[in-house]
């Protein structure tokens, strides 16, 4: 997570700039918890919080480049099951992302660079808010 946190913070900032509210803003919590061993974390609670947040929200944004985790795939599928609009961000040049093969009317998969990611998020939120 350490190498990606700047990207995550850019996404959060773009959501807030648009006037959106980030449900379950786990990024800063996880950054802090990263200083503790994984086996001291309460994973059942982490999963339940994520699932409850997906139920509550109007839209879901995931970063799902190459070696993204089981949790991201699980949460994305849950969001699509609940018919939430989902923006899946994939690093430009990453040809190996499973997410690029998922065909679902509620899913947008968009390639990004650090320079254009905020604009992509803003455009997605604009579209979602007009639906």
């Amino acid at each position: 997570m350490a190498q990606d946190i700047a990207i995550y913070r850019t996404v959060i900032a773009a959501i807030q700039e648009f006037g959106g509210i980030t449900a379950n803003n786990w990024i800063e919590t996880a950054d802090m918890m990263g200083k503790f061993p994984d086996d001291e974390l309460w994973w059942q609670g982490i999963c339940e919080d994520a699932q409850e947040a997906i139920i509550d929200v109007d839209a879901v944004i995931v970063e799902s480049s190459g070696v993204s985790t089981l949790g991201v795939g699980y949460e994305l599928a849950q969001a699509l099951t609940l018919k939430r609009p989902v923006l899946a961000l994939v690093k430009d040049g990453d040809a190996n992302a499973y997410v690029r093969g998922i065909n679902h009317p509620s899913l947008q998969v968009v390639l990004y660079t650090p320079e254009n990611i905020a604009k992509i998020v803003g455009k997605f939120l604009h579209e979602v808010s007009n639906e």
Partner: protein
Amino acid sequence: MKIYFSANHRYLERDLALYREIIGVIQREGHVLVNNWVETANNRWPQEMQYYDWASVCIAARGGIDDADVLLAEASGETGFGVGFETAYALSKGKKIGILIRKTEMDNSYTSGLDRKEIYVCGYERTVLADVLRETLVLLETRL
């Protein structure tokens, strides 16, 4: 039971023996493996990785899960976006779900947090994988 096996494609060369052992137990126990993608992928991977048709992979996976009674996943290592996606998809379709994970990851991974009534997460050590898997299959067939 008809079983769809979900696992990470990315390190197939490294994990091929493990996956083949799991598939072998499934078949020896009299179950039917739906969509044996492991051998298909092994014939193509990793040489064609950058040209891989992910849409076909996803369509085949969803079709396999739709046809199956059970999704059985190997989810060690936490890098399985596809495994997570397929697990939640199977859950949405009301399938029984068993997840195998290395015992050392049982208390320190997102996967361990998924253990609940509908999802059975089971830790294993490599040397006793076959025994653990047989017990898991019985549990999936009779109790879940």
